[in-house]
C-alpha cells in the first residue's frame, strides 16, 4: 500500500484529499504545514508527498526541495491555487504541478503515474 503525505494549511482541503486518497486504497497522512510534514518524514516514510504551494511558514516548493534532499526516493507533486488552470506543468526538478480546484480523476492519474514510475525504478534496482 503506497504511502502518501498530504500537506495543506486548509484543514478542509486536507480532509477532502485524505478521504479521496484513502478510498483509493492509499495509506494517507495529512500535515497542516511544512514543519510538521518534515517531522513526519522519518516516521511515515511516504512514497509520495503532495503539497500545497502557498502555506504559512514554508512554501510547498521549499518543502518539496527539502523532501528531495532528505528522502530522495519519494515522489513529489505540487498543488497550487495560483497557477494556470488546467495546466500540469513541471515545477522545476521534475515536480508536476496540479492546480486547484483539482478534478479527482486527473489528480489520481497523476499520483498513480508518479507512484508507478517509483515502483518501476525500485523494481529495476531490486
Amino acid at each position, binding site marked *: 500500500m503506497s504511502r502518501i503525505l498530504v500537506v495543506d494549511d486548509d484543514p478542509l*482541503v486536507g480532509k477532502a484529499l485524505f478521504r479521496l486518497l484513502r478510498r483509493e486504497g492509499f495509506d494517507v497522512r495529512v500535515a497542516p504545514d511544512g514543519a510538521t510534514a518534515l517531522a513526519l518524514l522519518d516516521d511515515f516514510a511516504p512514497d509520495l508527498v503532495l503539497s500545497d504551494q502557498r502555506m504559512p511558514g514554508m512554501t510547498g516548493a521549499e518543502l518539496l526541495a527539502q523532501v528531495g534532499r532528505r528522502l530522495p526516493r519519494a515522489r513529489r507533486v505540487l498543488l497550487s491555487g495560483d497557477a494556470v488552470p488546467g495546466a500540469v506543468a513541471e515545477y522545476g526538478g521534475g515536480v508536476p504541478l496540479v492546480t*486547484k480546484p483539482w478534478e479527482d480523476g486527473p489528480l489520481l492519474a497523476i499520483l498513480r503515474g508518479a507512484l508507478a514510475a517509483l515502483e518501476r525504478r525500485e523494481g529495476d534496482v531490486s
Partner: protein
Amino acid sequence: MTQGRPAAGERGSRAIIHAAFGVIDLLILVEVWGLWQRPGTAALLALNFALTAWVNGPGLDRLSSRLGVEVGEAARVAWYLCSILVVGHLTGWGVASEAYLLLELVVVGMLPTPSASWRGVVLWGGAGLVALLDGGSPLGLLLMGAGTASAFFVVHRQSRIILRMLDEAMSGRAELERAHHELKSVHATAMRQEKLAALGMLAAGVAHEINNPMSFVGSNVSALQRDLKAMPDLSASLREWADEILPETLDGIRRVNAIVADLRRFARNDRAEPEPFDLNEELEAAIRIAQSQMKCANCTLVRDLGNLPRILGRPRQISQLFLNLLVNAAQAIRGNPSGTVTVSTRAEVDGVRVSVRDNGIGMDAATRARLFEPFFTTKPVGEGTGLGLAVVHGVVADHGGRIEVESAPGRGTCFDVWLPREPPELPVPEDRPTGTWRLDAIALQRRTAEG
C-alpha cells in the same frame, strides 16, 4: 489675430476722431470765411466734410467687411489724400491743412499692420508733393512734414506693440489651455490604469481564495455522487440525487470554477521569456480558434496581411489578444446578413500595426469609455465575463504598444493595435502573483470559443 482696427476702446477712439475732425473742420471754416466768392468753395468743403465723416464712421467699416480690410484702408487713404488736397488748396496750405494731415495720419497709423506704414508714407508723401506743387511754403511744409511723420510713427508703433502684447497673451492662454487639457487626459489614463491594476489585484486575490473551498466542495460532491451511483438499491429520492441533483450541482461547481479560471487568467503571471515571432502566424492561429465563432450565416472574414518583420514579445499573449478581439468582432456581427470582419496587418518603421474591423452593432460613447474595465460586459449573463478586453489592454500595455478604438452604434467597431518591434521591457512576474497583477495570454474565452 485681429486684422481690423483694434476693438478695445473702439467706440471711444472713434468719438474722439470725429470730434477732432469736427474741430478742424470749424478751423477750416474760419480760415476760408470771406473767401466764398471763389467758385466751388462751399460745395467742395461741404463734400469734404460729409465724405470724411462717412470714411471715419460706419461707412468704411461696411466696405472693409465686404471687400477686406486692405481694400477699405486703401480707400480711406485715397479719400484722405483727396480731402487734404481740397483743404490744403482752399486754405493755402496753412495750419488747418497741417492739422488735417496730422489727424488723418494718426487714424491710418492706428491700424497695427505692416501695410499701414506704406499707406502712411503714401498719404504723407502725396500730400507733401502736391502741397509743394500747389505753392505751399517749403519751410512750412518741412515743419509740417516732420511733425506729422513723427506723430504717425509714434501712433503706429504703439499700435504694433499693443497688438504684439495681445498676441502673446492669447498664445500664452492657448498654450495653457493645451497643457491643461493634456494634463487632464494623462490624469484620466492614469486613473484608468490604476483602476485596472487594482481590479487585477482583487481578481487574483479573490480567485485564489475561492479555489481552496471550491476544490474540496467539488471533490466531496463528486465522491458523494460516485458512492450513490455505486449503491445497488436506492430509494426513489436518493436515485433522483444521484441522477439529477448531484450532476446539476457539479455543473454549478464547474461553472464557478470556469469563472474563477477566467479571473486567474486575467491576473496571471506569465513567465515566458520574450522571443521573436511572426505576428501574422499568431493572428492565423487566433483566426483558427475563433473560426467556430465565425460560423454564422453569411459572415465573412477578410484577411489583408502585409509582410511583417519578426517582432519581440510573448507570442501566446499576442495570439490571445487577437483571439479576444476576433471573438468580440464575431459577436458584434452575429445575425447581420452582410457581417464582415476585416483583419489587416502592416509593417511600420518602428513596429507593426494590426487592425480588426467589423461592421456590426458598434458601441456608444458610454460603452467605449468602460471598454477595458475588467468585468464590464454588454453580453448577456453567462456569456461573457467582461475580461476579454481587459486582457487585451493588459497585453498591449505589457508590450509597450498602443490600442485605439473607433466605434459608432450601428456602424461597427475598429480596434487598432500598434506593437513596437521590441517591447521596452516586458514585466517579469514575481513569484507571488497575488499582490502584483499580470495579464496572461492563454485561451481566455474557452467556454465561448468551445460553445
